[in-house]
């Protein structure tokens, strides 16, 4: 299965879990909201209203009893306020609640009874107030008796009926209130549980799916990485086998093809290199014999000639120069062709010792140009090929001597210091200098010479550059014409 599909399935599953959670949560929240609204707008306010109505009913009953016992104008005002304002207000509120109930709701009958009884209570209280208007009325036994009978036989039973009706309604609304509270609580608990369970499922499944997908991808990546490392190490033609037909398997096939092609190209190149090496070997050995013969013949020929003759002398000189030059070129070419694979010849070397050995070899040449060489090795040792390091010192010092300026005394400074992963050797001279703008490409080329008037085959810098790079190093140059040059040799610091 393709990675794209795997990822879509993995994320798709998580999205489905999330959607399921959202939907279930919305449903539960909707139900919880309705329950909360029921509590807030129905059961709660109704219970409060019933409680207030109950208090009002009892207050009116008490007022009736106290008022009939003693004349109290303020009590009359209070009864008036209850009868004129409060009772109609509560009656209206209760009627509004009753209208929201269905006809077969048992509470409706109770509400209707309370409304009817309240209406009767209003009428009876107004009648009562008219019976006992003045203090004299209280002294009128007939009126007092009439009022007391009215209270005991008419208003009191009504108060009791209203109270009873309210109690029964309160009981039902309390039950409804409690049910709604429990429902709300259960809804909230359910929401919490579902969120928790789906969350856990999402996490577990997500983890498993992610692990599967990652593992399948990583396994292929490791195999591809292994192949790439092998190819980069020169093991061309190596192949890898990846399971499935995903994008990484496709990449594996491409790498297999690439590795196979590289093997083919490398084999072809190797054949060509061998051919060239053989050609060079044959050429140099085949050329060496005739050149040596020419040299021998030249010596034999010279014996029979008048060496005092100016022309003969000149021919002899030219011939010697030409044969020496041809001999030297051939010797150098032999060196190049004989340069084999990297040998394990690295050893701990003291730079000062290497310099002394080279300086000893070149002492005469340096003295001949009245040159001066100084060293400052901040870092005194290096693990490197002795043969190559001597070659580097030899070539760079002898080049400085060769291309010294006739206008000033030659000075050569050699320093060594650590720069990052490298030991940097700097060979600075005050010689003729090089125009790097035009000569940089030529400088390290085979048989390239900057100054044709001086002796040299133009192979030295090519050789040391090649050797340095073989050991993982590099060489650079900074130079200014008629000021001097500095060659920087960077050797991998292995100490």
């Amino acid at each position, binding site marked *: 299965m393709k990675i794209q599909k795997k990822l879509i399935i993995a994320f798709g599953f998580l999205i489905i879990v999330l959607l399921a959670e959202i939907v279930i949560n919305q449903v539960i929240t909707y139900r919880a909201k309705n329950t909360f609204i029921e509590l807030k707008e129905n059961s709660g306010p109704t219970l409060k209203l019933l409680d207030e109505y109950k208090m009002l009913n009892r207050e009116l009953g008490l007022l009736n009893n106290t008022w009939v016992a003693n004349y109290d104008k303020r009590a009359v005002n209070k009864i008036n306020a209850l009868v*004129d304002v409060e009772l109609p207000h509560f009656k209206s509120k209760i009627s509004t609640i009753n209208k929201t109930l269905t006809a077969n709701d048992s509470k409706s009958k109770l509400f209707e009874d309370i409304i009817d009884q309240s209406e009767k209570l209003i009428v009876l209280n107004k009648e009562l107030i008219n019976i006992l208007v*003045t203090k004299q009325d209280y002294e009128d036994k007939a009126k007092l008796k009439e009022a007391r009978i009215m209270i005991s036989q008419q208003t009191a039973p009504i108060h009791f009926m209203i109270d009873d009706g309210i109690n029964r309604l309160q009981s039902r609304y309390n039950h409804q209130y409690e049910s709604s509270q429990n429902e709300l609580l259960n809804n909230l608990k359910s929401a919490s549980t579902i969120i928790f369970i789906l969350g856990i499922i999402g996490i577990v499944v997500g983890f498993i799916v992610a692990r599967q997908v990652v593992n399948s991808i990583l396994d292929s990546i490791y195999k591809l990485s292994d192949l790439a490392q092998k190819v980069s190490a020169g093991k061309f033609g190596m192949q890898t086998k990846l399971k499935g037909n995903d994008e990484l398997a496709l990449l594996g096939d491409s790498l297999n093809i690439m590795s196979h092609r590289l093997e083919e190209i490398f084999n072809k190149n190797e054949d060509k290199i061998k051919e060239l090496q053989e050609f060079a070997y044959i050429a140099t050995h085949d050329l060496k014999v005739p050149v040596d013969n020419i040299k021998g013949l030249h010596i034999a020929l010279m014996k029979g000639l008048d060496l005092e003759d100016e022309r003969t002398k000149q021919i002899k000189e030219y011939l010697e120069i030409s044969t020496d030059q041809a001999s030297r070129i051939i010797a150098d070419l032999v060196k190049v062709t004989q340069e084999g694979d990297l040998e394990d010849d690295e050893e701990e070397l003291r730079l000062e010792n290497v310099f002394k050995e080279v300086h000893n070899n070149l002492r005469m040449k340096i003295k001949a140009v009245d040159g001066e060489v100084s060293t400052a090795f901040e870092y005194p040792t290096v693990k490197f090929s002795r043969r190559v390091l001597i070659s580097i010192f030899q070539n760079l010092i002898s080049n400085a001597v060769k291309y010294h300026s006739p206008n000033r005394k030659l000075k050569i400074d050699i320093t060594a210091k650590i720069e990052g992963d490298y030991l940097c050797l700097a060979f600075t001279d005050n010689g003729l200098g090089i125009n790097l703008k035009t000569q940089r490409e030529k400088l390290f080329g085979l048989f390239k010479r900057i100054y044709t008037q001086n002796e040299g085959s133009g192979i030295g810098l090519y050789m040391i550059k090649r050797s340095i790079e073989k050991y993982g190093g590099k060489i650079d140059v900074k130079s200014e014409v008629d000021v001097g040059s500095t060659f920087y040799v960077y050797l991998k610091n292995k100490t």
Partner: protein
Amino acid sequence: MKIKSYFVLFNQMAFIALIVCLTGCSSHEIKEINIGYIGPLTTRATDLGIAPSQAMELVIEQYNKQRAPNEPKVNFFIEDDQWDKKNAIPAYNKLRKEHNIDVLFISNTDGTIAVQDKILAENVILVNPLNNDHLLASLNKNTFNIAKSTEDAMGLVALRIIQLNLQKVIILQYPNDFMKRGAMEVKRILDEVGIENKILEVGVGQEDFSDDISLMQTEAYDAYVFFGYKEFGFAMKQIREVGITAQFFGATTMMDPELYDNSEGTLINTEFPFFTAKDGNYILAENFLNDYENKYNEKLFSVWPAMQAYDAMRLTLNEIKKVNKDKKETEAFGDWLIESILKMEHYQGVCGNLRINEDGTSRGIYFSLYESTGKGEVSLINE
């Protein structure tokens, strides 16, 4: 067209749309409501004009301070009618012309009747914050009487006369509708129980009652009922000066300081219907009286006119503040306010809990009988 031109055009259109929306959205929102008040600030019954106007000003100030952004600001404008019905219409016209008032508060019963046609024609809502009687209840649909019942309050005097077993009563009455209604109610109750009684209508501004007193002296009344204003202070003094010791009774207006001054103390022991903080919602009433005292730096002698005016204005503002939420765009403000006040079932005020009846009158303010014990002092009669 370049992209820049499209951008500029889009911005312009968006700006226009914003302006249209803002103007369109707010076009029907009522930002301010102007309320007018006509009451006696000079000449007569100033305790029924100044204190109520200040109490209403206090409510409006509290409302404006606490109102929500979508509740209209209320402006209040006052005119003096000198407790004379002939000044009611000019004052009303002035308030309409200068301030385009939508709601009018007026204390005087005669004034209330006088402006009836005008308010109906201009769909202005009228609220009488002091009186509420059978006549006022029969006025047009734009009129509300958020006050005590005149008949109930004044009838207390008759009940007290019956209780004290007084047999011959003279009722001196100021010639206006409110006092006439009170006198008639007392007469009705006394007639019912067979107590001899007589109503004597006095002249406006009359201060010398010597001719009437001579007559009354010969008729030997047991009780003198004064249903009027400050001039009755002179009458009380003059009656006592001739040696009459009969019980004095009064109207709800007896706490006018000028009346006390005019009576030179003879007002003391006069019994009259009155209303104090204890008769209403004591806590709210005390809060109101403290706020009033703090704002105007004066203590009220007669608290009920201010308390009633406070409740009437607060009740009205409770409805007005819903205008931008409840009123339909096509509905007239006056029609909406009538419906809104009539729908109000229960109002908790400083005078007690009030209810508005279908005829625009209120229930819930009940007076008690008090007696004067000094200037600005009263005590409840323990019957």
